């Protein structure tokens, strides 16, 4: 139980609900009802059936033999990129839309960075016929255009955010402001394991299907439910939380999160929160943050819009602090090269976010008989412009 929340919504010293009174009604409603709703028979039935027939779960656990040969160790890829809408994000939005319906909400808002969470939210809103507003930084709208068009086709209103660096943090600020202004009819689908309690716990539970499947699939493929290590990229940290979830208590399984170093952790242009951050309060949670000595949040930078965030989920801050998980980072350049390598060895073009996890393989000492599982959290369609620019095809 060391890695679950306490009665105040804390993982160790991280988490909580640092909300203004204007958000109290919404958060307390969610807090008192989320577990009861999630554990009700009708809910899990609908959730499981949508994951199977709509998302396409279970997602395959693929043995990447040429990549394994390259690294001299067994490498499995958890293919979240094969989910409907192209990433793990749909696991969470399916769960939250069912929750929102049961709370009687008619309007859905979301923040998005790479657009994967916005796309997954717009998708479930179309599925359920609910109004959808997605906040997205103007910088991200420019660099993730295919997703913006998809969201609009799905009927979502995509609102450009022009404050700060015009990226994920700023989109989150604006979504929180929207929620304050709509305290009755609106549910805010946060896309990662961030924000006030109960979001980090709730989103981790919805994403935990990833690790539940990995255990089963590993048993079938290797004879053991437990790998040597799990590797996942971390921005807010939802795919990593889902990948680690059912292994947290298995102390012999090594957990590795990979942050976005941008142009390098010491370059001033980075999003590697744990590498350069310190404890603080942002987006209603006490967690690790990139900030200056006056408590002003530092603008993050990463080529990957989905990891371009100056904070991290409180679960990861806790796993970092306790040493349960290790956090590495990968630069833009290392990430691009890793994406290229996977493409050429396995015929899979990964999302830039997921390619950070692949880039870390160069930094992890691996032995031939070890079993490594990398969460391939998303596919690279949305990143073709960045790949084409770098590789010049």
């Amino acid at each position: 139980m060391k890695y679950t929340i306490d009665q105040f919504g804390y993982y160790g010293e991280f988490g909580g609900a640092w909300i203004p009174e204007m958000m109290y009604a919404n958060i307390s409603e969610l807090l008192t009802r989320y577990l009861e709703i999630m554990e009700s028979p009708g809910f899990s039935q609908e959730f499981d059936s949508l994951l199977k027939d709509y998302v396409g779960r279970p997602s395959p656990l693929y043995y990447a033999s040429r990549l394994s040969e390259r690294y001299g160790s067994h490498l499995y890829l958890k293919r979240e990129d094969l989910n409907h809408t192209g990433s793990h994000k749909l696991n969470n939005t399916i769960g939250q839309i069912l929750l929102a319906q049961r709370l009687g909400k008619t309007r859905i808002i979301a923040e998005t960075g790479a657009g994967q969470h916005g796309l997954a939210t717009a998708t479930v809103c179309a599925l359920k016929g609910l109004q959808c507003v997605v906040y997205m930084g103007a910088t991200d709208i420019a660099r993730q255009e295919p997703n913006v068009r998809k969201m609009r086709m799905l009927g979502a209103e995509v609102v450009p955010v022009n404050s700060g660096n015009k990226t994920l943090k700023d989109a989150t600020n604006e979504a929180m402001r929207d929620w304050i202004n709509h305290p009755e009819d609106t549910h805010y689908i946060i896309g990662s394991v961030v924000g006030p309690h109960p979001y980090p716990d709730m989103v981790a539970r919805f994403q935990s299907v990833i690790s539940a499947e990995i255990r089963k699939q590993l048993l079938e493929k290797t004879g053991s439910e437990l790998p040597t290590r799990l590797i996942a990229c971390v921005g807010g940290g939802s795919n990593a939380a889902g990948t680690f979830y059912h292994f947290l208590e298995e102390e012999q399984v090594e957990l590795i999160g990979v942050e976005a170093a941008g142009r390098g952790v010491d370059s001033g242009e980075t999003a590697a929160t744990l590498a350069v951050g310190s404890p603080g309060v942002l987006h209603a949670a006490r967690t690790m943050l990139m900030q200056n000595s006056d408590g002003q949040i530092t603008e993050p930078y990463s080529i990957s819009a989905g990891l371009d965030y100056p904070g991290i989920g409180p679960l990861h801050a806790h796993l970092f602090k306790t040493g349960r998980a290790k956090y590495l980072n990968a630069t833009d350049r290392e990430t691009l090269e890793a994406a290229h390598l996977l493409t050429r060895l396995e015929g899979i073009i990964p999302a830039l976010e997921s390619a950070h996890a692949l880039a870390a393989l160069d930094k992890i000492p691996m032995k031939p008989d070890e079993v490594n599982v990398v969460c391939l959290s998303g596919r690279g369609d949305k990143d073709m412009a960045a790949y084409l620019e770098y590789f010049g095809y």
Partner: protein
Amino acid sequence: MNRIDHLFQNKKSRILSVFFTAGFPGLNDTVPIIELLEKNGVDLIEIGIPFSDPTADGPDIQHSNDEALKNGMSLELLFSQLEGIREKVSLPLILMGYFNPVMQFGVERFCRKCRETGIDGVILPDLPPWEYDRQYKAYFEGNGLHNILLITPQTSDERIREADRQTGGFLYMVSSSSTTGAGKEVSDFQTEYFERVRRLNPDHPRLIGFGISNRATFENACQYASGAIIGSAFIRALQEPGTPEEKVGRFVRQILPSV
């Protein structure tokens, strides 16, 4: 006696409280604006500590936060600007802002600095009452500092009574469910909320804030509370042409009949 308590003891109605962001429009405007507000008859001042991510604020106060930070404002600098302020003004002063800058400054050190400077109260909307009780109450009380709590139209009767027990100085009534400066029209729902709080008859006096911008909205708020708080409208007034004397004088005269 805390100057906030003193004010409410001596003035029961039509209290005007004005909010502005420290270091805006100019880095060194903080103290002159405080002096001008007092000279023009304002009763209470809330000095905003700028923050990079003001999630409860609308566009006007977001803008003043951004500008103040660009000007080089910080909490450290604010305290040094406010040194000696008690030789200049006697009205109650409140610091208002987000928790993170206070946390990085050190909460205990912050409370001590407030007392040394002559600050009477603090409003930190994202420091919820349960965290305040758990970790910080002793620092505030030990320095004679009021922690002022907010209530909104969504706050239940039970929680309003609880806030009344826990708040210091007064209850900050957020007029409508919104970020600052939203300027929503006064609705029946709002009137119902104002009446509901009045019927609960809290021990603490109340000030109404958010969406108060001119004489009409100020007068309306004063029917239901001891007074009102204006923020965004004053931030806008500070960006109009003119000297600080002219801008502050013109703004206060728009709200209060000549004093």
